[in-house]
């Protein structure tokens, strides 16, 4: 029989973690893919925050001489047909993508939380009406729904966020509602009633916090799809308007005309979109595993 090294087993289980650095190292070792995802996301956030310091080029300045300049040289990733630096546009585009992703996710989750909690906790005709409404919204795919919303709201950053947030609502509401249905029958809800708490307070302080774990997992997934939908909307000409750099529109502008002559205009924005969605999905998976009580010990 092999000799068991208890200390090694313990540190593998994370028993002797010291300080925040220790926790981070433990996370990296336990969820390497999640750590890569987190790193990608951190990278994008840093790029978005410090865009001015990273690139000397202005993403909006045109320069006819540099039109369709290839990668290398002055423009690291080349330039588009108006001579705007591609790297600068991707870097500033990260701001738009992250803002839309974050804004739409937060807005959609908040609205979905309220709808789901009301519907699940108080039930009755309210639940019935709201759920049928959610059914109607869910019968359309996310992109189609966002398209309809974006087209009716008109192009602007805020409208794009709202247009993407609205179709996210039913997904979140469903998850919150189903959790609420189970939670409201829990003995601790009865116990809260027995100490004289009102139904509204029970819903907000006892039921809602218990639904947050599944919501966080859902939110990371929604974050990725929000960015993807924003790119798709921009690709179809309904996203954030010109001249703001949006990855999706950068793709759409170049795809038809330049994919043979200047492929970097298609490849690099495409890589940026893929990387950020990949990053959120990896991180989301790790968070789901972390919050799953069956995998936690």
């Amino acid at each position: 029989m092999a000799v068991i090294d208890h200390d090694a087993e313990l540190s593998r289980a994370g028993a002797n973690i010291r300080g925040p650095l220790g926790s981070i190292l433990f996370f990296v070792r336990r969820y390497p893919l999640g750590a890569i995802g987190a790193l990608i996301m951190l990278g994008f956030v840093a790029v978005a925050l410090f865009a001015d310091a990273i690139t000397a080029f202005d993403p909006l300045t045109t320069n006819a001489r540099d039109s369709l300049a290839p990668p290398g040289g002055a423009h690291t990733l080349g330039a588009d047909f108006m001579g705007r630096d591609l790297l600068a546009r991707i870097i500033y585009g990260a701001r738009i993508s992250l803002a839309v992703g974050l804004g739409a996710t937060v807005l959609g989750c908040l609205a979905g939380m309220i709808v789901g909690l009301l519907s699940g906790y108080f039930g009755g005709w309210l639940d019935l009406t709201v759920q049928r409404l959610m059914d109607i919204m869910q019968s359309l795919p996310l992109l189609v729904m966002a398209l309809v919303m974006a087209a009716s709201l008109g192009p602007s950053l805020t409208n794009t966020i709202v247009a993407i947030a609205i179709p996210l609502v039913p997904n979140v509401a469903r998850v919150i509602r189903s959790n609420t249905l189970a939670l409201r029958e829990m003995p601790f809800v009865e116990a809260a009633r027995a100490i004289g708490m009102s139904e509204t307070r029970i819903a907000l302080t006892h039921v809602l916090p218990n639904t947050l774990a599944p919501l966080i997992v859902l939110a990371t997934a929604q974050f990725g799809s929000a960015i993807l939908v924003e790119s798709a909307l921009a690709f179809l000409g309904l996203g954030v308007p010109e001249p703001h750099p949006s990855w999706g529109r950068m793709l759409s502008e170049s795809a038809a005309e330049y994919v043979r002559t200047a492929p970097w205009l298609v490849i690099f924005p495409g890589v940026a979109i893929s990387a950020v969605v990949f990053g959120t999905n990896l991180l989301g998976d790790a968070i789901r595993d972390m919050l799953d009580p069956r995998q936690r010990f």
Partner: protein
Amino acid sequence: MNRPFLSPGGATHGKAAAELVLEVEGLQTYFYTRAGLVKAVDGVSFSLRRGETLAIVGESGCGKSVTALSLMRLVADPPGRIVGGAVRLDGLDLLGLDAAAMRQVRGKEVSMIFQEPMTSLNPVMTIGRQIREALMLHGAGSRQAAQARALEMLQLVGIPEPAQRLKEYPHQLSGGMRQRAMIAMALACNPKVLIADEPTSALDVTIQAQILELMASLQRKLGTAVILITHDLGVVAETADRVIVMYAGRKVEEAAVDELFAHPLHPYTRGLMRSIPRLALMRRETAPDGRLQEIPGMVPALSNLPAGCTFAPRCGFASDICRREYPRYEEKRAGHRAACWHSDRLTGDGNG
């Protein structure tokens, strides 16, 4: 309303009323279900004196938990509804209060602890916050004052390292500790009445004894009246002053605890006593072949009760009159009431 409970000729009316903290009269809680009308509690009356422990005993489904929930007005409506009777707490009619006033009573005047300590505490909230919550709802003042009181309560219920435990989450505590925390929460506002619905059924035996001992000592200290809902006659014998036996939504017997164990006057009570291993052994009441006795049959469906005495189909003493007419609930011995046509036949061999 001033009827003294025991010793009919004894105390004057006024004095008796002051002694009584809770009076329940003809409580009826019905459930309107697809299977029909379920009379879960049908005309139950009792009263509770200050500092007294009243046990309500019966099988699953006899209406004891619904009685407890009715007192707190926590019966889910629909399908349940309190359709009749009165519940008076120090003269205040609880059934007549509006929802907001009733919330002020819950937790402050009447508290409740539940069977499942594992799930009766919110898993994402610290113990301290949950006890504080009970206090703040009933005007404990500042957060600091509530925190101090919560700490005091944890000390009182005998939780080691109370300051540390306040910051911990329920999953960090064992079952017994959680039930102690529940008791701390229930007693934090110093209620007049504590309803304990099977408080020890989910705990293992050694912890059960500790929790019962704790409840008894807190009761002495704080003067809380306790309604103990249980199916465990061993627990009753250890803690209760007075016992009510319920069957199919009605009271079938009621007496002081010693009297009840010495002279059970209802065959159902006797059946319960015989079906408990420890007690049966102690009292050498086991059947001749040394095996435990059970009550034959099952509790009848409350939506379809038999005519006459509801226990008759399971009763060895049942005669024609039992199947025809429900027996009167009357005093058979001093302070000992029962609803049975054949109590006199039980007195002879009931204590043998």
